[in-house]
């Protein structure tokens, strides 16, 4: 299940209930329980038996394990943590018991849950895993490798199909029907980012102390569970701990409803209209007959992508506001930017920041500390390419996403070299408004088309189709 209009309506109704009847001191617990519920409710139906129960259950279990591993050495398990753990375990087991309830009365889950012994077995495996690795020196690295391995399986078709085949063999289903869609694990991409952020920040000592209730709510916070934005734990914690303070709900509702309304318009009116034959896809890319048509469909795709994703972000932020959590902004007029660097500071901002913190900065530090130190230009090239390749591969393990990452990595690198060499020229333009305007216009045009052309790699599934599309765009086909 995606973030449909009915899902948004449910969130809004719950927000009204939350504002109207939940006492201030229980708001945190309310969000904690709601976030757990929605992990299951948002999970789409999956063809592989029981998987639509196991995947959200794994989301919960991995989150709890991650909390256990990322506690500071001084942090004791408090009674409140034990209550939170009891709620989570009780909830998982209760849902599993819905196996014995007729389908019409089975709420929150997409299909019949597995036998209870499998569920208890899974819980036990992770409990033992957490207990065994809890004091292990390499526990953080082990956990990161575990998350990245799941990530690689989900994002690489060949691995995903192989895993689906294995799962279908285990459940006695037709192996020939196995596909990557069998592993449609809702929310894992963003879940992984939040988990890795807390693990890395624990390693570097930056992570604040979080109770299990706070940690689970941060990682699984339902408005941002499917498509972000990717909040930071310390920022989330500020809002979460202020939930019990006296607040003026009318302020929240005006802001929240406004954001949600704008988001719905962007996503469900503009983006979904553009999706109706007005944007590039693998099918029409093969059918396009003329260069003009190719450009129009490519522009359509660029706009659709922006309105779709920024609309989702607005809705998530708006719903967050209704509950008192101010999620970070994700877009800031990215297509109006006059350089590729500024574009990446305003497109999917929370992802860019995440990758800057956990890929770009550590890699830069590592290269700068190397002896002999590599040339600066090489450091810039490597770090920027690696950062953008990481973003590319996060979208999927295909050659086209890899090329898209390299495309932007090289774009950032070239832009850096250009600005380093033309700084004096641009500085003297400040006194010449017309020339400045012209230079800005040219810079915007180049940036916009660099980004738009990059979407060809992003939108199309394979190298050949993308190359043919480029040929069509430039009248070479």
């Amino acid at each position, binding site marked *: 299940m995606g973030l449909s209009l009915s899902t948004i309506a449910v969130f809004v109704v719950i927000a009204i209930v939350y504002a109207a009847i939940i006492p201030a001191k229980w708001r945190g617990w309310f969000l904690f329980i709601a976030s757990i519920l929605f992990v299951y409710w948002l999970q789409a139906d999956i063809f592989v038996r029981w998987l639509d129960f196991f995947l959200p259950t794994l989301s919960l279990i991995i989150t709890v394990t991650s909390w256990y591993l990322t506690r500071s050495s001084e942090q004791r398990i408090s009674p409140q943590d034990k209550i939170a753990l009891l709620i989570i375990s009780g909830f998982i087991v209760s849902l599993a018991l819905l196996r014995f309830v007729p389908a019409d009365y089975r709420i929150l889950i997409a299909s019949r849950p597995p036998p209870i012994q499998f569920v208890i077995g899974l819980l036990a495996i992770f409990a033992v895993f957490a207990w065994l690795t809890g004091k292990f020196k390499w526990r953080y690295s082990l956990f990161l490798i575990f998350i990245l391995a799941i990530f690689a399986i989900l994002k690489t078709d060949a691995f995903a199909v192989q895993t689906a085949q294995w799962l279908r063999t285990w459940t006695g289903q037709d192996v020939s029907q196995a596909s990557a869609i069998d592993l449609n694990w809702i929310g894992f991409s963003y879940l992984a980012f939040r988990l890795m952020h807390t693990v890395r920040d624990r390693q570097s000592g930056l992570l604040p102390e979080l109770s299990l209730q706070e940690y689970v709510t941060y990682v699984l916070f339902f408005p941002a569970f499917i498509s972000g934005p990717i909040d930071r734990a310390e920022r989330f914690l500020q809002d979460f701990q202020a939930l019990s303070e006296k607040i003026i709900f009318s302020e929240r509702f005006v*802001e929240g409803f406004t954001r949600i309304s704008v988001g719905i318009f962007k996503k469900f009116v503009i983006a979904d209209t553009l999706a109706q034959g007005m944007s590039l896809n693998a099918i029409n890319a093969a059918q396009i007959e003329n260069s003009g048509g190719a450009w129009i469909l490519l522009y359509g795709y660029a706009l659709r992508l922006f309105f779709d994703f920024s609309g989702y972000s607005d809705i998530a932020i708006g719903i967050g506001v209704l509950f008192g959590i101010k999620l970070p902004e994700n877009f800031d007029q990215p297509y109006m930017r006059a350089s590729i660097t500024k574009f990446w500071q305003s497109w999917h901002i929370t992802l860019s920041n995440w990758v800057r913190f956990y890929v770009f900065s550590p890699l830069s530090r590592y290269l700068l500390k190397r002896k002999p130190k590599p040339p600066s230009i090489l450091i810039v090239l490597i770090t920027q390419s690696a950062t953008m390749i990481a973003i590319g591969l996060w979208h999927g393990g295909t050659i086209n996403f890899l090329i898209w990452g390299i495309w932007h990595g090289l774009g950032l690198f070239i832009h850096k070299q250009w600005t380093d060499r033309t700084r004096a020229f641009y500085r003297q333009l400040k006194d010449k408004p017309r020339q400045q305007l012209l230079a800005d216009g040219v810079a915007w045009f180049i940036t916009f088309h660099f980004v738009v052309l990059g979407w060809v790699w992003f939108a199309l599934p394979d190298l050949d189709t993308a190359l043919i599309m480029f040929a069509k765009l430039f009248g070479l086909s």
Partner: protein
Amino acid sequence: MRDWKWIDNLPKSWAFLLRVVVKALLLFGLCNLIFAWLYPMQFLGNLSLYGTLFPARDRLPFYDGNDPSQSNSISLNNLPALFASHDVSQSKPGDEFRVLLIGDSNTWGWYLDNDETLSAQLNHADLTVNGRDVVFYNLGYPVMSLTKDLLILDYAMQYDPDMIIWLVSLASFPPEEQLVPPLVRNNQARLSPLIEQYNLNINPEDEAFVQPDFWQRTIVGQRRELADLLRLQTYGIGWSATGIDQFIPENIPLRQSDFETDYSWSIYPESVELSENELAFDVLSAGIQIAGDTPIIIVNEPMFISDGQNSDIRFNSFYPIWAYEQYRDLLSQTSIDNGWQYLDLWDSIAPQEFTDSPVHLTAHGTEELANRLINTIFENEE
């Protein structure tokens, strides 16, 4: 974020929120009431970007059952919208001799590209009549019902045709098939005057007709139709970029050649004697009257003739021999009696030129049909 500073300036009170919600609901309700009162669906259908921003379509839009984004097309019941997207709605040059082709999926060109359809093959011949360029327009629509053809013909008369070629087949004649197409059922207001004027054997109050009540005429009630009007425009981009308006699979399934021992046709399980009353000749006659002085030629379209199992009982999966032969006799005799121009091409195309149904032709088969039409109709016209 510069995007959202304006929200800070909004009054943050319940009264403000309530005012916004109440005003929005009132405005929405008012717009719905005005919309239901005016019911401008036919007017909105005329608003089209085809022919201006996008090239007009060569055939009427029809949803072929595949992903619409693969075929850049959609089915609508709004006749003005269908025609506004079609090339025939463009202004007619003075030196054009305009020929409209009316018919079913055979005429529309099922599984044929636009340059392979009957109208395209006819246009390839570059015919002239009295120094005027003959231009053929594909007004086929992939449903078999003479009443559907009548609706299209009646609407198309405003585009000043110089000749009409109406391709028919027995499957379009059963009275019980006349109101099956959604295009017919959703155009009661257009069909009723025709039923009355030409005394058609159709009940204008038949339950099959969709007659929206007041609430169904609101924006909410018409949301699907409004979305479809918008979608038809958005698919114009894909159509203009690709020239594709139908998804054609790589492997087209082949029509049936062998049959059970089955004599049934339409509502008849066994052979019966058919008369004009059992077939919708009244609709055919109405079409010819609507055409008035414009020459109209009725063509019994080619069909697949099987030599497989039980081919002594059936010509194909559509028609048993008893029904089809009676139909041919009746159509021929009625044409003679009424002085209609009639051309019987039922067996003019070789069986291997039929694709997935007894009336769908290959590109080559369509070319042969075009040549037959040219040779028969236009041999003395040039």
